[in-house]
């Protein structure tokens, strides 16, 4: 079923393919960014939020990516555990810091948006709280990776952690939502992006995805090159 995937899972082939694709992907990313910014700024200011609605263009895609990147990490971890493939190990490892940064970006922009909207930098709203917990899940994963010396072992062990996290995330989301309603919080973050804002938002979302793919591929390539360099320098 995954034959087509494994054909490209050979590191040498992966390097060739990704090297050829990256310039195009970067160009596409920059183009979508420019389009998204143009569309966003030319849209009429929201009657309630004014220009601050633009923060949501940065915030909402980042929050979505916070979960999406974790999903990528989980898929890579599954391959790492089942197929024991080095490329899956590297893919899972490199996705984590990117996911953590997207999550942090979502938290910061959420806070920046919240200040003019709610008058405080932080609100224990359900979605923000889930995102915060998500951030800590990334941190734990990264810390565990860095603590284990042998790379192959680190990959397997962290893959188990990623899967446990994946099982737990829906439960955490559920419990946080339950908790938020318990404390009479309403979901204020349901920032409405319908109407004139939908198209610019979707373009921005596309940009985030392209950006992630570009950064991810670049990081994977870097780690593979580092590994080759080490073996050239005579590491066992």
């Amino acid at each position: 079923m995954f034959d087509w995937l494994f054909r490209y899972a050979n590191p040498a082939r992966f390097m060739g393919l990704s090297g050829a694709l990256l310039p195009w992907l970067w160009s596409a990313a920059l183009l979508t960014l420019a389009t998204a910014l143009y569309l966003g700024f030319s849209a009429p200011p929201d009657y309630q939020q004014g220009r601050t609605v633009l923060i949501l263009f940065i915030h909402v895609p980042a929050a979505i990516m916070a979960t999406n990147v974790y999903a990528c990490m989980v898929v890579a971890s599954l391959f790492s555990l089942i197929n024991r493939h080095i490329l899956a190990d590297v893919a899972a490892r490199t996705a984590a810091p990117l996911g953590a940064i997207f999550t942090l970006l979502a938290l910061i922009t959420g806070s920046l948006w919240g200040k003019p909207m709610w008058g405080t930098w932080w609100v224990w709203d359900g979605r923000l709280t889930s995102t915060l917990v998500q951030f800590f899940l990334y941190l734990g994963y990264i810390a565990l990776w860095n603590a284990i010396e042998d790379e192959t072992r680190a990959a397997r062990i962290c893959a188990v952690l990623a899967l446990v996290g994946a099982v737990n995330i829906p439960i955490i989301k559920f419990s946080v939502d339950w908790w938020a309603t318990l404390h009479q919080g309403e979901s204020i973050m349901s920032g409405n992006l319908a109407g004139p804002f939908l198209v610019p938002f979707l373009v921005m979302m596309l940009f985030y995805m392209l950006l992630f793919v570009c950064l991810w591929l670049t990081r994977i390539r870097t780690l593979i090159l580092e590994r080759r360099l080490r073996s050239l320098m005579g590491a066992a």
Partner: protein
Amino acid sequence: MIQSLTAEKLTVQRGSRRLVENLSFTVKAGQALSLEGANGAGKTSLLRLIAGLLPAGAGSVTLHEGDTEISEPEERGKYVGWLGHHDALKASFTVSEQLAFFSKLYGREGDEIALLGQVGLSRQAELPCRYLSAGQRRRLALARLLASRRPLWLLDEPFAALDTVGKALVARLIALHCGEGGLVIAATHESLGLSNETLRLGNAVLKL
């Protein structure tokens, strides 16, 4: 009862390092095999692989018991009597408590006192393990090995920390085990005191 153990085209791998490649050997019931090789040649890793604790990079280890073949790592482990580097003793447990725990863990019970006599620890039975000398700790580990009553002994440096009397004891126990139809594989620098086979790791020489 195990008739023989065969290793076929084994690759011993630790993390991303390959220690041994394409290794094949057979040990029959009543035989002892000693593993030799420099530090880091992969003796301990090979023992862990045979015990089923370390997955094989390639190849297989199979135990033959009658017509059944046991090659699943965790099933293989249930036939293994293990004497590792570490003595696996808890400082606050007395010698007899320690031995009783492992006997129960291995589903064997009863003859702890006799076993302690056999390894020369009768007098220390009620002494907490923190007061034992290195040699006495090793003797207790030997008693535990006997208590497990497993057919395949995997011994990592069984002579370490023992005096001449202790070393003679180990050699006697190994001979006894082989005499009863057991199998022994030991990583050691010293002779097992038997007309045993030697497998040298690192330069891939198999001496028969």
